[in-house]
């Protein structure tokens, strides 16, 4: 067989291989970029959550006591393993939290660190203000903390421990909730 006969298929393959695939572009962006790529659809472009959107896909992460107080490794574990089924923490309209493997988010600890630092300092843009309506960050914190306390209490017995160890975290939110225990 002549090599020229393979050229059409090689050309076609190269053409399709050159098409953008999300995984390839994902590796070129930083933690903030990964947040927008993998997290913002559910948790809001500035971490404000999507409870006020339809469909509601995820709780706020900015001002979230768990995100603020839990170790980055614990958040990374949640990112890696997700919170599907019985492990889902929020008794609300949200679906399961999916798992993101290393192909989707190479540096989970780096992203978790961003959630605890950069995202918490995020300026609320006009875009996210629209999505939040009149809800201020302080009100988000208060509502979130109250919900978190309620949910943790409810979901505790059913929650399976994550693979990366049993971490006990004292969560103290803006409402001074007393000793909320979360087993992960």
């Amino acid at each position: 067989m002549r090599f020229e006969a393979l050229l059409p298929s090689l050309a076609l393959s190269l053409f399709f291989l050159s098409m953008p695939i999300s995984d390839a572009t994902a590796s070129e962006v930083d933690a903030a970029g990964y947040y927008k790529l993998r997290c913002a659809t559910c948790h809001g472009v500035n971490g404000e959550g999507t409870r006020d959107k339809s469909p509601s896909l995820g709780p706020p992460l900015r001002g979230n006591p768990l995100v603020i107080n839990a170790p980055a490794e614990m958040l990374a574990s949640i990112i890696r393993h997700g919170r599907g089924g019985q492990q889902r923490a929020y008794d609300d309209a949200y679906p399961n939290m999916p798992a993101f493997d290393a192909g989707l988010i190479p540096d989970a600890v780096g992203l978790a660190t961003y959630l605890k630092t950069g995202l918490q300092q995020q300026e609320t843009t006009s875009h996210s203000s629209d999505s939040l309506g009149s809800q201020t960050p302080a009100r988000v914190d208060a509502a979130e903390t109250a919900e978190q306390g309620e949910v943790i209490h409810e979901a505790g017995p059913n929650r399976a421990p994550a693979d990366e160890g049993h971490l006990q975290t004292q969560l103290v939110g803006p409402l001074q909730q007393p000793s909320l225990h979360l087993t992960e």
Partner: protein
Amino acid sequence: MSTGMKTLLICIALFFGLQFGVTQDAQAVAAFARQTGMNCNSCHIGTYNIVPNFTRTGRLFAMRGYQVPYIRERLHAEGDTGNNNEQSKYGGDYLALNWTDFFSARLISEVVRGGEDASGRSLDERSSPINRMSLFFSGAITDWLGVWTEIGYLGNNSLHSVTPNRQNEQTGVNFFAYDEYRINASWDFGKNSFYGFSMGNEHPNVGAQFQYPLPLPDLWSNGQGGVGKSMNMANLSAFMFYDDRLYLQIAGVTGADNTNWSDGSNYYLNVSYDWFRKTRNDLWLIGEYYAGNDFPSIMTRIKDSFLCTGVCPPGVTDENLSISNTPGDVIVNAPVERVRHFDSLRLSLEHSAADRGPHTWYAATTFLTMTQDFESGAKVEDTQVGAYLRYFYARTYGVEVFVRDHLKYEYTTPAGLKRDTYTKPNYGITFLWYPAMNFDFWLSFSPRVQNIVFDDQRGLYNDKASSYVLGMEYNF
């Protein structure tokens, strides 16, 4: 085989080999999962039975027109926009998510089918290893526009031989059976509120996915949209969802059996209320009204033959070379009537609970009534009720049961004579096993497959038929 043919085959093999080797990770989950990052269980309570049941998230996702919040930001993060301004203002600055995100497919195989039909003939020959193959291209186009398309291939419609006395022998020939599409545009107008418009070629109640589960009473859908096995129809809808709980929809429909607006049309109204609004506890109260003057009689079968013009000649039957499409339940020996006007009301309760401990279920009950006034002066009234449950333990082991019955199915002749019908409740049970969330086996039983007869012709009643199916389904 010629050298040219060998070269072509090698090229094709090389091409697909390269594609698979490089892109299989990106195609490991279905289209919506790729677009949203969520998995199947986020939106579905099992995928069995052609059209899967939905969690609250899944229903709102479809209702909204396959939109998710902040898709614009994701497009920017992927670098797929033509203009990298911080916030592009114009539609031309967007590029819809790439084709690997959009494309998905479903394969349904009936490994074993058995039982007997009403005449005592074995149903074994109806097994279809490729029962159904669907290709989807669906999702968000921009942050206000979404599309759903499906092209379906039905292997269970194998065309039979037309040779006299050999008509039960399959030819192995199949055809593309149907295609469906919906295009939805929607916009937010407040907290958990949106409004929008849609167009498509199915009944408009697909917009909110309230026509499912399939075993419940349904006189409207008349099969799927598209050409081939099923009749086509067109619809234009306006809808809104207010305050995370109230859904309103109004739609115009060309008719249940055509796409012509000029020969009559129908309209559809939907008022629905979501009571609890939680993933683990979601209760919808649904009221639907459908009326108009372009609808076939529910008593008789619509039949368009691919083989014969009009009546087939003696010795030739076109049972498997024709479209037989009936929105209702055929009555044996029912007169052929032409509908002048019809009214129909359906009231439903649908409850879903996803991952409540190890338990997940979807339950529904429906009351449906339709009255058809015929041009002859006759009329028919059909009132049905049905109940349905699909339950899963740990999202792995499931069972689905349904029962439905006619409360009243009565034909009134042009002379005013009332002819009641005779039939019995219909029921079925299916056992489900999900080794993975996108792969399942099922075993279903339909203990009674019956006909409907006029009460004054009870001798024609037959409920001897039964059937069972062992199948599998794979979504990818």
